[in-house]
């Protein structure tokens, strides 16, 4: 066991972890961040995606010790970001969710994409969101929701 420090949604947390624990389990089981889901535990479904120092990573494929000293942002945390909240609202409005199990991963990933590239569209946008599986098949609605939220990420806004 060793103690690592994570900043999770703005709050600094110290937590004891085993070297073989992945970030996913530490967030869910030790820090109670249950917006981070899992469905494959091997990097294939994308449901455990979090922003680690601003970049989307799959937390089942990231050791907790690798994240020591870094900043983690999840869907709960994005509610306090004005633009991300609008993005969440756009998901709600467009019905861009059914069972909702993959939704937090799509929220953090599309927030990252729009922050980086607010004009993104078409095939580029689809490609950016290709790392997460939605079995309910809400891709059409997510696509519309993210496109619609682009305006909040543009500079003038």
């Amino acid at each position, binding site marked *: 066991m060793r103690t690592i420090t994570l900043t999770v949604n703005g709050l600094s947390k110290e937590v004891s972890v085993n070297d073989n624990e992945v970030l996913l389990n530490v967030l869910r089981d030790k820090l109670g961040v249950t917006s981070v889901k899992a469905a494959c535990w091997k990097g294939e479904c994308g449901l455990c995606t979090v922003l680690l120092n601003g970049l989307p990573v799959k937390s089942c494929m990231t*050791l907790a*010790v690798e994240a020591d000293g870094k900043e983690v942002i999840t869907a709960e945390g994005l509610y306090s970001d004005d633009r991300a909240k609008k993005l969440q609202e756009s998901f709600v409005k467009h019905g861009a969710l059914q069972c909702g199990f993959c939704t937090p991963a799509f929220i953090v990933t599309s927030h990252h994409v729009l922050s980086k590239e607010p004009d993104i569209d078409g095939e580029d946008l689809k490609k950016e969101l290709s790392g997460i599986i939605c079995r309910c098949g809400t891709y059409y609605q997510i696509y519309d929701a993210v496109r619609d939220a682009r305006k909040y990420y543009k500079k003038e806004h």
Partner: protein
Amino acid sequence: MSYNTPNITLPKFTYYKADNLADALSLLKQYNGKARVLAGGIELFKQMRQRLIVPEHIIDIKGIEELRKIDVTDRGIEIGPAVTAVELQKSEIIREKCPPLFKAASFMGDRILQNSVTIGGNLTSGLPCTEGVPALMSMDSVLEVRSAERSRILPVSDLILNIRKTTLNSDEIITKIIVPYNGGLSGGYLKLLNASEMAVANVAVALFSAKRKLRLAMGAVNVKPYYFDESTLGWKWNESIEENIRLALNAIGSTIKPMAYNRVASAEYRGEIAKVLAARALKELFRGA
């Protein structure tokens, strides 16, 4: 090979974060045979969850600055093994000077994984469908490989030994990927999937027009990649592209021995797709040239 594993947890190991190359190499020497290098970790963690490998020590090289750089040197383009797929795609140097690798990088896992996937991890996964191997082979790339004691140069074409097996020794790390051309080449990369994320075939092509050099490398068709140059392709510079593609496909067809592998595709289909991709890649290459 199958990725089925009932396990959610990773087996026990001790984690080391190496700050510099010397530390990493000495740890690797100290725990020789019982340690694994963590670059991207995707394939490593998959295999560990499956208990295919159970290393006692994990040495994380992602924090080593010199392994994370892309430089232009007198040797050509030097790429650190810990450079991620996203960084490859963001790099002006890679985009301008290593087009096959630039294109291949966008296929190295999905967009999220590409923040974690490293070129070194992609190469050393030893999977037949790896994107990096044919892309780098098409540019005659070599690897600088080091252990605590020595350093050697290994052509990328000699890296893959068998499925999930490379010719690296257990105490060695790829420290540089060297593309021996500083620009002047055009190239492409194509890949085809068949109801699986495992490629049926992938093809990289590169053309050094000034020197009239043409390269074509092909992965996933068999365990080891295939490499062709203008002479093994039977290329005739004074002939039309259609005639050349015909010659090239004949050469490819009589060289490759496609495998039926992992239920992704039959040997027959693999062989045909390899040729179709080769034809398309060549056609696109010369249309763009």
